[in-house]
């Protein structure tokens, strides 16, 4: 009899506490991407792949002290959308998390290039930053006016990089290019004249020449690839990608994107002359 009563009490207690336990077991409330009205407080995902694009302190999934081109752009973009960045979260590695269905963020500025996988996971904006290859010359080398002017020179790039591929496919130089193991080695080869011109990502060209201005030549131009980094807008986040595109266009036209690029990347890749 006593046992049956005790069992009854335990069962009642268990039933009473079940909803509370279930509530506790649920994940912490994510930003509600299902809201119909545009959110005012945005959660922005960063890639943390390139220190100039975004850097910070990762605590759990949160990014504290976020800085860099993309972090700054996210803040400005949020303001233009009538919202503000509530917090930054880490998206690493970007592609894997992009494939996950529930995002937990509204916008992702994580060095995302348009791909089928990215398009499947989120709505992608227009590019905000070009990923073309830039040409950095050695000292005393005359500026090339076209791709043909580069063919007679000894070119160099990082081994296995997109730029090495650009040399092979777009430039097709007379002599085989030098392929370096590291950025430092590449810079050394250019400084010493072991090669005449180096192809580096336009995003990195400013940092490549920074502090070596007297030893290297100018950044002479870029090869237009039509590719760029885009903002990923989470589906059902309540944000309209057209509004994001319109805001990016305004930022480009009023010079904000150029200023951000010069501040964080050392130069504005979009302002470089295109070589054809």
């Amino acid at each position, binding site marked *: 009899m006593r046992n049956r009563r005790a069992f009854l009490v335990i069962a009642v207690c268990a039933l009473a506490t079940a909803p509370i336990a279930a509530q506790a077991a649920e994940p912490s409330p994510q930003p509600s991407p299902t809201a119909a009205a545009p959110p005012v407080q945005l959660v922005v995902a960063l890639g943390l792949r390139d*220190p100039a694009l975004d850097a910070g302190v990762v605590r759990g999934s949160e990014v504290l002290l976020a800085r860099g081109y993309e972090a700054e752009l996210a803040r400005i973009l949020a303001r233009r959308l009538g919202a503000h960045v509530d917090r930054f979260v880490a998206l690493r590695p970007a592609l894997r998390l992009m494939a996950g269905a529930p995002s937990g963020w509204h916008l992702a500025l994580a060095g995302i290039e348009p791909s089928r996988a990215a398009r499947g996971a989120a709505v992608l904006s227009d590019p905000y930053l070009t990923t073309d290859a830039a040409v950095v010359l050695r000292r005393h080398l005359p500026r090339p006016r076209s791709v043909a002017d580069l063919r007679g020179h000894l070119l160099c790039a990082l081994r296995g990089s997109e730029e090495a591929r650009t040399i092979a496919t777009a430039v097709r130089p007379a002599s085989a290019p030098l392929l370096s193991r590291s950025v430092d080695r590449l810079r050394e080869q250019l400084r*010493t004249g072991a090669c005449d011109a180096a192809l580096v990502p336009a995003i990195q060209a400013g940092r490549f020449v920074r502090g070596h201005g007297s030893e290297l030549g100018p950044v002479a131009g870029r090869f237009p690839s039509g590719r760029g980094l885009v903002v990923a807008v989470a589906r059902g986040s309540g944000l309209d990608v057209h509004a994001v595109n319109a805001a990016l266009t305004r930022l480009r036209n009023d010079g904000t994107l150029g200023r951000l690029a010069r501040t964080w990347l050392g130069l504005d890749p979009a302002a470089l002359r295109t070589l054809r």
Partner: protein
Amino acid sequence: MRVPHARRRSRRRERELRPVRRVRLAIPAVVGACALLVAAPALGATDVRRGQVWFLRDGEPVAVSRTAPAMPGLLRALLAGPTRAERAKRLRSAIPAGTDVRTLTIARRVATVDLGSRFAVGRDEASLTARVGQLVRTLRSVPGVVGVRIRVEGGVPVGLFPGYDLRRTVRAPLASQSAPTFRDTQQLLADLGFMAQTGVTGRPGDETTVAVLAFEKWRGMARDGVLSAGVLKALAHATRPEPVRHAPGKRVELLLDRQLALAIVNDRVERVFHISSGAGGRTPSGSFRVYRKERLSWSVPFSVWMPWASYFTGGIAFHEYGYVPAYPASHGCVRMMARDAPLMYAFATTGTPVDVLRGTA
């Protein structure tokens, strides 16, 4: 009272065994004390009477002595920055004033320090890198500490401090830029065109000496072939030699004042060769072309073999010779090292222009 015989025997035995027990008890105690003594410096439990705190002078790390109680004391001394007297000696700290320590722990000989957000303030890459270097050097100077983990506001800094991956334990600060290895220096000489890539071996040898000599000649330095501090400094900022004249195609420039020969293709200096030309101005200046080549040439007037000879005017040729000093020493020909002469022979094909120039410095 009379004690029974068995009891007496037991007491005697107990008295005999007492020192043995004492020793048995003492052994673990001594071992324990030794272990504590070994571990104590790493744990920061005992005072580090004299420790090293690292600051910067002209961007280079400099250690100063501090009498500080253990590791927390050293860390506090580091964050406090140089004293007024040290500042007068141009010592500086890259760590922002007001940086606070949240926690400092040590486990498995790795110190983990959690700092306030001020540690990451600023965008100057050199300063951000230097402050991590200061912190790592200071904590690594504590006996027993083999690595440092840096946290900021309880999180892992990613990309904030250029050159350091703080997701991992930092075992050593970044190497100073001013100390290239011998192999690095050889690579630099090869990149600049003063020696062949095959000469980059990491080992000293006559090829490196000749390359240094050629570099010294180009820069107008003392011609001794010694890799001195002055040469290293000049190499660090050197760029590839430029031709004196500009013309398309393949050609050779012979710089009599510098005692160098430049192999040039389309205005790009491919190689710089150490040579010795005619003493007393016996090598004529002017523009010539290679007109005759002999794998092994016999000099009739001087009765000597001249391997790898490329004649460019009269009986004047580039050729191999056993002795190539740093000054003009020949009867008019251009002496070259045994390693370089075949390269010049292959480069200067018949008809290749040769510009012999005086006064190019």
